[in-house]
């Protein structure tokens, strides 16, 4: 990842407008061809530095809901449970964390009732209880990580 990649990642986390050529503005600003912006983005995706470039969908604006769920899973059973949890398309993210509650996942459903249904199914399939910790209030969503700061 070079300096141009870093600028691209930082700038493009803020989002682009829906226009015919969404990469033209940043290409002009950086003084490189649009095709190079696209090529760099593709490489960043292929290398895993970006998980994707595209629309980020908000379940709540769709009339659905999100929740954060936590489970306490014994180490010997962790892989099996992770497989069962991740198999649900409504599970958007899942992280292992160092804590008694060691599996933390976000459930996003198109219908609010979908959250409870998915959590119930997961509890039933895995045999472990899932804490349901829905967001009550959001205090500010910072848009970006600084791709330049950590390296």
């Amino acid at each position, binding site marked *: 990842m070079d300096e141009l990649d870093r600028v691209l*990642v930082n700038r*493009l*986390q*803020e*989002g682009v407008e*829906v226009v*015919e*050529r*969404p*990469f033209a503005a940043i290409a002009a600003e950086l003084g490189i061809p649009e095709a190079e912006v696209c*090529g760099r983005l593709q490489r*960043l*995706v292929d*290398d*895993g*530095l*970006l*998980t*994707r*470039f*595209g*629309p*980020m*969908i*908000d379940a709540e*604006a769709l*009339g659905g809901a999100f929740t*954060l769920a936590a489970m306490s899973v014994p180490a010997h059973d962790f892989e099996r449970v992770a497989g069962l*949890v*991740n198999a649900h398309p409504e*599970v*958007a*993210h*899942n*992280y*292992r*964390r*160092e*804590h008694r*509650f060691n599996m*933390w996942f976000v459930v*996003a459903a*198109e*219908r609010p009732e979908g959250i409870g249904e998915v959590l119930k199914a997961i509890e039933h399939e895995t045999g472990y209880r899932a*804490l349901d*910790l*829905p*967001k*009550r*209030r*959001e*205090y*500010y*969503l*910072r848009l970006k*990580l600084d*791709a330049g*700061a*950590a*390296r």
Partner: protein
Amino acid sequence: MTVAAMERNGLDPVDRRILVATQGGLPLVPRPYYAIADRLDISPEEIMRRMRRLLERGVIRRIAAVPDHYALGYRANGMSVWDVDDPRVDELGQQVGALAFVSHCYRRPRVLPDWPYNLFAMVHAATRLEVAERVATIADLLGGAARSYDILFSTRILKKTGMRLEGRRGV
């Protein structure tokens, strides 16, 4: 999705097809909406018009690069969790959320006795030590209003796809 739910959300079958086709990522070409138009047999103008509308309504939060913070060098990801006095949690949550190093800050319910924490603040940094230093700053800010706290470091991403719509419903 039922007809009633579709009317409530205003996500008609064409919107859904467009979102399903793009949610995994746009084609990284100079005219991505033209590439999608070819695939979906919808005009590029119609795709752009609908995506603008979805952005305005907030169904699409933004069209952006989604980084993998581990790959970017933010190897330490600490979810700091706090048990804050209920009457003060909103006021203090605003202040914590405004800290530059806090990427997300939410109030969530306690689930007693297992889970006493009602405020969540996500802190990313290059090292765990840096995360701990940043969390100490939050502890100073919260002062006596926080009865206890913990930091849950992530050790592995098990899944990160983002919200996915199902393609088959309503199509």
